């Protein structure tokens, strides 16, 4: 559990840059497993407390008057270098808590949408969300039983993805596999970024 420097006197080198990637998808699809596979510690858990309306996040002033809800997020840390720290956040349930999703997605490099071929439709809400927001994403088909019976282009068609969106097979339990998915996402996000820059520039 050593995160590097143990002592940090005032006036030391500037703090590292922190960035994040989201791991999304339906219930039980392997989000926490993937976060854990590639992070340097086991997944941590943090909670946001929301008021009933979801408008006043963390507004505890009226707590006696009830109606708060707790949203849990799993996350992990990968210290890439002295000046770069990557955080992976598993997104909370897809059917509500969009308020928390907005907070998570703000500034994210991109998102991995995990899919299970036995219930592909479960990842529709995640895909809709990232498409609507313009967040770069890839679809990673997790290796549950039967995953290999599907061709990736069939998954692509079934999910009605834009042709450029990568669809890859993965095993969320394997560190190397999770790393490959993240690298595929980053390369895709870079391409998108370049394309958008060109579209805006001419």
């Amino acid at each position, binding site marked *: 559990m050593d995160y590097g420097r143990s002592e940090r006197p005032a006036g030391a080198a500037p703090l590292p840059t922190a960035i994040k990637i989201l791991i999304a998808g339906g219930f039980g699809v392997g989000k926490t497993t993937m976060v854990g596979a590639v992070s340097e510690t086991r997944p941590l858990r943090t909670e946001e407390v929301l008021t009933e309306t979801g408008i006043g996040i*963390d507004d505890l002033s009226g707590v006696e008057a009830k109606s708060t809800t707790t949203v849990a997020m799993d996350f992990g840390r990968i210290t890439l270098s002295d000046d770069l720290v990557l955080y992976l956040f598993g997104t909370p349930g897809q059917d509500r808590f969009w308020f928390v999703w907005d907070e998570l997605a703000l500034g994210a490099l991109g998102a991995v949408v995990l899919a299970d071929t036995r219930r592909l439709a479960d990842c529709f809400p995640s895909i809709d969300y990232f498409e609507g927001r313009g967040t770069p994403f890839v679809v990673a088909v997790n290796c549950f039983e039967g995953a290999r019976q599907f061709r990736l282009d069939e998954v692509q068609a079934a999910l009605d993805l834009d042709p450029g969106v990568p669809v890859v097979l993965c095993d969320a339990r394997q560190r190397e596999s999770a790393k490959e998915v993240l690298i595929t996402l980053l390369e895709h996000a870079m391409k998108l970024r370049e394309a958008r820059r060109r579209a805006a520039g001419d």
Partner: protein
Amino acid sequence: MTGRGESTEQEWVDDHAGPVVRPYAVTGGRARPVTGTFDLISLVTATRAEVGSESGLGPEHVAIVGLCQRILSVAEIAAHLDLPVGTVRVLLGDLAARSLVQVREPRATPAGLPDEHVFEAVINGLRAL
């Protein structure tokens, strides 16, 4: 690793005062930090090796200074203290107002994506893991 209990924790917890009462007490009922915004991945480091119980600082403030002898994100601090992020933001605001912590907010990129060199650095860093 986490179990199936996760899903029930996402239910409304109206009648489940436990996790809410302690944070309320910790911040004295304050909902917002006196200063700062504190993104989940804002990085925090203490500016001192330790603080005593100065007036106005509680045990949770002291605990944050202890944790932040190494560089931690707001989310990590909240996870280690087992407090909601909003509560930790309030406590960090108190510490920042006294210059007891230094905070680096992530680059805000609401309109676009970060620099190409950030992507390249992340890809290279992942490959090297």
